[in-house]
């Protein structure tokens, strides 16, 4: 009996080897334009990743119903990174090797984006990230294949500091979380303050997942800070807003663009009123004048998205995905027919780099060999929450 077992194992192995080898030899070329996407659909950044995924799904439908790209149907293969940097690397590798996509959009977060720079560059495939860190596209000589569409933390903080300077505020306190996003923001806040005549009197931190910032805020209220700048995601920022209200801290609270969704307002309740933060114009689309080049894109995106997913569901995060996929689609539209995969990837990369004055949801983009973000100044708006609604602070 034993020897039959062993020989059948050998037989199975040999047959498997031949079958697998045979299967992989024949690959039929396809008519479909395949693009890959990696988003944090679950995990701590899922409130960014889910609208990104939803936006992509919406766009693919719209494009295919209109006949595709030059007649080619568009397929976007979306993988969930689960907020895990290693999984992101795995999924990106899978998209490149197995699914053989022409371009990749995402990931959602800076940490994951930084982690795959090597992989993308070695594989020579264009990527448009949806994350904030400036290190994703700089130094641009080492980021030949990588682009991004969201504003960097630096631009957001510049808006805040410019506003504070205009309001003659000189002493502030900052509170940030210890995640990649929070730490990156904190670094820029500390580094750039002096340029705007601002002194940081107190620098407090908390961990993502902390449930009370009362101690940190108590410490801050012992200083003469005229304003608090909080650099964190929506959940913790909501707790900061709530705790500031508990402590009767009357000074204004400025937050990061991480609170650019309704979840913050729902969670912070009354404490959300008066909070000011920089974000894309998507949140205040109705106040954008008709003369603004972004008006049409913003209005259409808002109407289409909310028609599909419900009122009040838009966020700037979905907007980043819209911009990312749009630039890829624009490059695909310009691409010649009949290219093989390597040539196609190169063509798309070149196409993205040549984009000029593209009015997206996050801003107006002009890419170039020296700038793979290309966002024109004035793309961000300072927004204040009044009565639970977003209003544009001009």
């Amino acid at each position, binding site marked *: 009996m034993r020897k039959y077992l062993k020989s059948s194992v050998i037989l199975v192995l040999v047959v498997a080897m031949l079958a697998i080898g045979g299967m992989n030899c024949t690959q039929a070329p396809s008519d479909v334009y395949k693009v890959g996407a990696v988003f944090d659909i*679950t995990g701590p950044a*899922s409130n960014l990743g889910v609208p990104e995924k939803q936006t992509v799904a919406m766009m693919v439908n719209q494009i295919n119903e209109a006949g595709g790209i030059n007649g080619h149907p568009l397929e976007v293969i979306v993988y969930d990174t689960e907020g895990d940097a290693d999984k992101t690397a795995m999924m990106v590798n899978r998209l490149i090797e197995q699914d053989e996509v022409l371009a990749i959009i995402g990931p959602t977060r800076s940490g994951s984006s930084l982690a795959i720079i090597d992989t993308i560059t070695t594989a020579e495939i264009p990527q448009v990230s949806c994350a904030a860190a400036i290190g994703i596209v700089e130094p641009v000589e080492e980021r030949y294949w990588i682009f991004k569409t969201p504003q960097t933390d630096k631009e957001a903080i510049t808006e805040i500091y410019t506003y504070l300077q205009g309001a003659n505020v000189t002493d502030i306190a900052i509170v940030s979380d210890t995640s990649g996003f929070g730490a990156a923001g904190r670094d820029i806040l500390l580094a750039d303050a002096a340029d705007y005549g601002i002194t940081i009197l107190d620098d407090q931190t908390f*961990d993502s*997942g902390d449930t*009370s910032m009362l101690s940190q805020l108590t410490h801050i209220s*012992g200083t003469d800070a005229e304003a608090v700048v909080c650099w964190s995601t929506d959940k913790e920022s909501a707790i900061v807003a709530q705790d500031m*209200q508990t402590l*009767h801290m009357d000074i204004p609270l400025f937050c990061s663009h991480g609170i650019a969704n309704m979840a913050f307002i729902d969670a912070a*309740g009354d404490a959300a009123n008066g909070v000011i933060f920089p974000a894309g114009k998507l949140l205040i689309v109705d106040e954008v004048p008709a003369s603004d080049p972004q008006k049409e894109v913003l209005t259409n995106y808002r109407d289409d998205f909310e028609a599909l997913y419900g009122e009040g569901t838009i966020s700037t995060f979905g907007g980043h995905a819209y911009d990312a996929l749009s630039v890829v689609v624009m490059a695909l539209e310009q691409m010649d027919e009949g290219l093989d995969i390597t040539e196609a990837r190169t063509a798309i990369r070149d196409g993205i780099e040549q984009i000029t004055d593209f009015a997206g949801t996050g801003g107006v983009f002009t890419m170039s060999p020296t700038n793979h973000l290309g966002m024109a100044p004035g793309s961000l708006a300072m927004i204040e929450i009044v009565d639970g609604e977003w209003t544009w602070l001009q």
Partner: protein
Amino acid sequence: MSADQFLQYLISGLTIGSIYALVGLGFTIIYAVTRIINFAQGEFVMLGGMLSFYLISSVGVPLAPALILSVLIAAMIGAIMYTLAIRTARRASVISLIIITIGAAVFFRGIAGEVFPWGVDFVRPPYFTGGESISFLGAYIHPQALWIIGTTLVVTVLLHLFLSYTMVGKALKACAISPVAAGMVGIDARAMALIAFVLAATFGAIGGVVMAPLTLTSYNVGFMLGLKGFVAASIGGFKSPIATVIGGLTLGIVMSLAVGVDWGPFSSAYKDAIAMIVLLLILLIRSGRLAEEERAS
């Protein structure tokens, strides 16, 4: 640090410490009666808060019934967990039981992240009595924080009375002192274990229900809460509810003051690490006595 500030740190420390104390009570009860460390304790807290939000917002149950119902459901889950997972693993080794409770914790966390309509987002159930903070001797306290501290005190007192003056309570204490002796006087160890689990789930859920409006909640809050609650229980020596509560309050106040003192390694970024170091020190200092206890059971 001014006097006002000190009082404020004390109040925030008491608030968060009460939360740790409630979590810690669950650990203490289960450990005392069964010698098991229930790594899923933090998840009961999470479930309390999540269930209350679900009942209030998705099902439309009014506040008070929703809170009670959440705690009851959690208690039932505790009973089911004991019956299906712990009791069936007869005479399992200590590692097995540890891993089983970890498995349960991970299981609850995953399910919580999937079955509720808001998925992995965070949610905030409504405050019990509004959000206007109350001024107290120069410091402020949120009304929900008063609920948290008050609930912890009430629960502790009730538990103490229960253990000292009721038959079941005394039977539990007997098991805690010596399972063998308790068995000899006819106390059913398995029934006591079941009660311990139900009580632990109940207290955990009460904690969750009362803190969620203030701290927000989501599917993954169980881990760190459980860990901090465990530190509270270990400071209290896993002995009595009162010791556990003192442990929790101490931990909360120490962590709050650490932020206030703002010295060197005690920056706010390291406060979780400090809690763990406190834990390790306690364990190592007591290691001799703890080892004897383990060997005795």
